[in-house]
């Protein structure tokens, strides 16, 4: 029964937090750009407006996939809240990404297609880092369970700081911020139409936005895992990382997908692999 309440609470509360974060995002970004910015609650107004619009679409499968994306995002967030297997969480998140890409592919639209291909490259860039993080957590804790991260006294950040740096750019990719807002962007100024979301409108676009809200709570939650004991430190770190992303977004220009993959597969993976190798050497496995 307790678990059931947790699940319901997650499903209800997470989008409230996510929506607020998006509101803060818009406000902070506006200030950084010398504008006043919309009210903090603006994302909620937008969502309700979208939900009220006429539902039009270009393909049936597109709805199936975007809805699948939302459900899987919620499922991986539940995985985090229930403190289950981290590797399962990463695989679920990967499935969510695949669903979004397939949504983009399932119509013959050039812009949506562009976006889908780029989203796939984004998965290629962040997925190995998250999987390496799982391996790193195992190397440190001897288990893949998230609950063990909470029961351990010593924060992950002390031993896994190189992976933390790598996770920060995963956060940039996941939040669709410059320089990695490649498949679609929150700003109109550097976009090929609207990338992967070009063909979504009205209630279908609302589903996508809702999924994004869950997603930001999820990835910030993963960042908070680095200092799970006491959790408020981790949450502060996560919020700090969130603000950092906003600053980076406003001082960086969008880069190419190819550059992103190269950077991730060189710097990111080297950080992750070196980190894990170090843990193994310290523990004397070799």
């Amino acid at each position: 029964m307790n678990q059931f309440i947790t699940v319901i609470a997650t499903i209800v509360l997470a989008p409230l937090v996510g929506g607020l974060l998006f509101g803060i995002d818009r406000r902070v970004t506006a200030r950084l750009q010398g504008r006043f910015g919309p009210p903090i609650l603006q994302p909620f107004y937008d969502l309700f407006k979208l939900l009220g619009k006429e539902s039009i679409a270009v393909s049936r499968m597109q709805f199936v996939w975007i809805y699948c994306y939302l459900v899987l995002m919620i499922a991986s967030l539940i995985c985090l809240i229930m403190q289950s297997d981290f590797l399962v969480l990463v695989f679920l998140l990967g499935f969510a990404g695949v669903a979004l890409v397939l949504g983009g592919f399932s119509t013959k639209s050039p812009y949506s297609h562009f976006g889908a291909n780029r989203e796939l490259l984004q998965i290629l860039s962040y997925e190995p880092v998250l999987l390496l993080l799982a391996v790193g957590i195992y190397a440190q804790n001897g288990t893949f369970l998230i609950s063990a991260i909470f029961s351990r006294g010593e924060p992950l950040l002390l031993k896994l700081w190189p992976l933390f740096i790598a996770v920060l750019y995963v956060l940039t990719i996941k939040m669709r911020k410059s320089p990695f807002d490649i498949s679609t962007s929150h700003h109109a100024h550097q976009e090929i139409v609207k990338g992967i979301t070009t063909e979504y409108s009205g209630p279908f676009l609302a589903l996508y936005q809702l999924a994004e809200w869950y997603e930001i709570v999820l990835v910030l939650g993963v960042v908070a895992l680095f200092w799970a004991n006491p959790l408020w430190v981790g949450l502060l770190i996560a919020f700090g990382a969130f603000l950092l992303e906003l600053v980076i977004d406003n001082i960086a220009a969008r880069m190419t997908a190819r550059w992103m993959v190269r950077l991730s597969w060189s710097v990111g993976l080297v950080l992750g692999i070196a980190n894990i190798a170090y843990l193994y050497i310290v523990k004397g496995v070799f």
Partner: protein
Amino acid sequence: MTDGMMAIAILLPVVAGFLILAIRNYFARGVVVVSTAVLLIANSIYFASRGPFTYSPPAGFEWATLIAILDYAILITYIVLGFKLRNRLVLIFSATQLVPIFYFEFIMKAHVEVKPAFVVDNLAIVMSMIISIIGSLICIYAIRYMRDHEEHAHLEKSRQSRFLFWLVLFLGAMNGLVFANNLVWLYFFWEVTTLCCFMLISHDKTQIALQNAARALWMNATGGTAFILAIIYLYSTQGGSSALSVQNIVGGSVHSAAMLLPVALLCFTGCTKAAQMPFQGWLLGAMVAPTPVSALLHSSTMVKAGVYLVLRLAPAYAGTYVSTAVAIVGAFTFFGTSALAISQTTGKRVLAYSTIANLGLIMACAGINTPLSIAAAILLIIFHAISKGLLFLCAGTIEHRIWSREIEDMEGLAAKAPLVTLITAVGMLSMFLPPFGMLLGKWIAIEAAYKVPLAAVFFVLASTLTIVFWTKWLGRLLQVMPKLGWPLEKLSPSYSVPLWTLFIGIFAVGFGVGPLYQYFISSATGNVIAGASSIVASNWSGIVLTSSAAKAASTVGSFPVWALYLVLGIALLLPMLFFGLKPTQLRQVYLCGEQSGGTDTDEWLAEADIKTKFILGGYYFQATLGEKALNPWVNTVAILLLAVMIGCGVISK
């Protein structure tokens, strides 16, 4: 009773094969194939319910002499083929088998008698079920497929009988291979599968088919050579016949450091048959054959024999450098071929690379050699056989619909053939996403890889690359114009029965993996390594892994099977069933307002308002990930790794 069971498993396919060869009537031949299939399936299920036993054929018949004669017959056939095809490599590597075997029998005057000749344990039963069930379904599929194939090729004289003969014979040889305990008999069955493989690949007799069949032959013959050398080495240094019993080799009763070299050689043999890099060429070439051949080679037979051998021998090299080397060889193949798969434009080639990659993963699991990884290897063998068998049958069905194997030609298949697309899509998703079995296997593999961290890193990278090539391909199938009402296509029962059976199989085996593991696979794992039962707990709701430290056993990971299928149901099944669009809701795609017509036209007004069709294509990254760019590198590394693997066998003694 056991006499009959073994006879049905091994000899029935041979008898049925000759019967098929004699029958010229399409319908009668079909009846023979279907009834053989039914018998084989029923028999394999009976094996499972009866449980393990050992078996030696009744005395009074010189089975050993028969097998020796057939050995020579096969090798002489290779030599004849070598001359016919004018292929020097085939000649060289058949000679390197023929000469040692001649030396073994006539100069060393070896007298090999191993009792029991066959050991039917749970692992062998699992393998036999895969071979008998999935293999038989593929044979059923081939009945109609080959008729369509010949109609399309306008053949004057039907060669369907010959094709089905080799196909059915293959199943018998594979059953013999997994049951055999006598290494010399195992070698014989090994060579029969190589011969069947050659005959099936070369079936169409085109220039390219003959060339690729020859490549398959010589590459597998290198493995055969290593096999026979291992036999001679074991026989001469380990004291005769008893060293040639697989039971003794893995049981440790002839265990000594000197045994490591022959075991490493046998692992090499396994690598050739499982098409590990640098031997991937033969399996890629094999796709020129009619699709049932690919389906059979990739799912239930041939390549699975390679991983079976390595897995079976795991206890013999446990805890040595050979083991680590096997893990790295497999993990590297998993990584390298997953990268290469991204650049492939032909559907069957992507499937082939994916097979090699997953075999690499299984191989790596055998090399990691912990109870957990061995459990992962067996699960992966099962799930891969189902999913890949299905995907090849889908590829064949698609090919007979659009008469092309190119991924770009499959664009928008969802609108043309929704049923086949649905089955294919599920097959693809089942290869790399939760909650399906392949991912479960991968999950256990990553959780088990702590002993060989380098392998874990390769697993991580390869898993990511896997996501890319499957999603990319699936995306091409789904790309459709805004239009409602896709008419369902009609399929011949010879196509639809195997397709739907495997389709249901994915879900049945995947959803029931908990109990299935507990009652069945766990004991198969126990045949290879002890201790799996104490660290893997499974039931309907999921699989929980605990650390092997007995004192404070703590949970290492948990895979909630039941919950994940529920998520899948809510996420995909629900909208598929209940979401519909009305025609009035459809709009044209965004083309900057330059469309030339209604919603379902893919033309736009180009320069000077000329109607132009717009074309979308997939990404293939051939400059960075193509075979030309990657092959020199990955093959070099793979050759070095194989050399290290055999080197470890030499040094460790």
